[in-house]
């Protein structure tokens, strides 16, 4: 286990002990939810791990870096931003995917843009957002988030 993983487990355990001391019944309920969500997400996790294996095994690195790497330029970043806005995958599994892409030649910028658009913008959920919050607010939020995501990615590319 890596140091980070150990730290995360200690953090979760600490929260669990704290919760248990505060309210036993609620903590039990939380653990039931935890077990359920573990098994709910497990198939998706395995799917993404297989896809990562295939990606790193079969797609040549030059190919990946040509599409989402340093050479891809601004057009590549735009494409990644669009992809992130359209796709509707749980953010939990977007991080291992991002790590795999980073390892195989994607630039930090495109990975940051991908994660940010993926989480902040939802084309699939846009109709619902418009219904609940109104057209103006929903479109402004998604539109500006798109620009922000690209800015964040560009800055991260510069500082990291």
């Amino acid at each position, binding site marked *: 286990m890596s140091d980070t993983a150990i730290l*995360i487990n200690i953090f979760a355990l600490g929260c669990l002990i704290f919760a248990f001391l505060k*309210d036993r019944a609620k903590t039990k309920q939380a653990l039931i939810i935890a077990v359920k969500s573990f098994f709910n997400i497990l198939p998706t996790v395995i799917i993404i*791990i297989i896809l990562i294996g295939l990606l790193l095994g079969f797609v040549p690195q030059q190919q990946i870096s040509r599409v989402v790497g340093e050479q891809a330029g601004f057009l590549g970043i735009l494409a990644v931003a669009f992809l992130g806005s359209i796709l509707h995958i749980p953010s939990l599994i977007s991080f291992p995917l991002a790590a795999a892409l980073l390892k195989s030649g994607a630039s930090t910028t495109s990975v940051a843009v991908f994660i940010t658009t993926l989480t902040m913008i939802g084309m699939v959920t846009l109709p619902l957002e418009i219904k609940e919050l109104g057209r*103006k*607010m929903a479109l402004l939020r998604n539109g500006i988030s798109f620009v922000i995501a690209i800015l964040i990615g560009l800055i991260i590319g510069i500082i990291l």
Partner: protein
Amino acid sequence: MKNPADKKKKQKRKMGKDIIFLVFTLLVLVILLSIFPQKQRIVIITMRKFFIEMISILPAITVLIGLFSVFVPKEMVVKYLSKTAGIKAILLGIVIGALPTGPLYVAFPIASALLKKGARISCIIAFLSAWACIKIPQEMVELQFLGLKFMAARLTLTIIFVVIMGIFIEQLIEWSEKNRQIEGGKDDKDI
């Protein structure tokens, strides 16, 4: 109101779909690896590495998801956010948006309730954005796979830009509403 039986059915259907997808990807994997046996080693090594990295934190992550969903009820979110104002409201929106769990579409009805209760637009935007991309269990996964430097940089930048976006959208909507009142709704320009 939520219907628990309906929710359960939906969950089951989603689970079934996930498993069909899983079987399909497994088939693709087996077929590809049997056609290209020279790729077996790298694919299996990669998968094993990512699997170990994921499985060593997944139980902890789901425990955090469970704890947050039980200890941070949605009513609490509305209660705290409908009463504050100014930059404090934006920051509180970010903090409170980062706590509960669930996908973004769960947050829309909450945001809508906040809007009706008179919360600031900037606060609601901050809340939605934080809900979307600063979830604590989610950030643990980012830490594990992308490292502290990447996570810290992305989070800091996101918070800065979300605050600016919140203020900007609020000004814009208030300005356009004022304009509409002045022009008596005759020139109904939507931005």
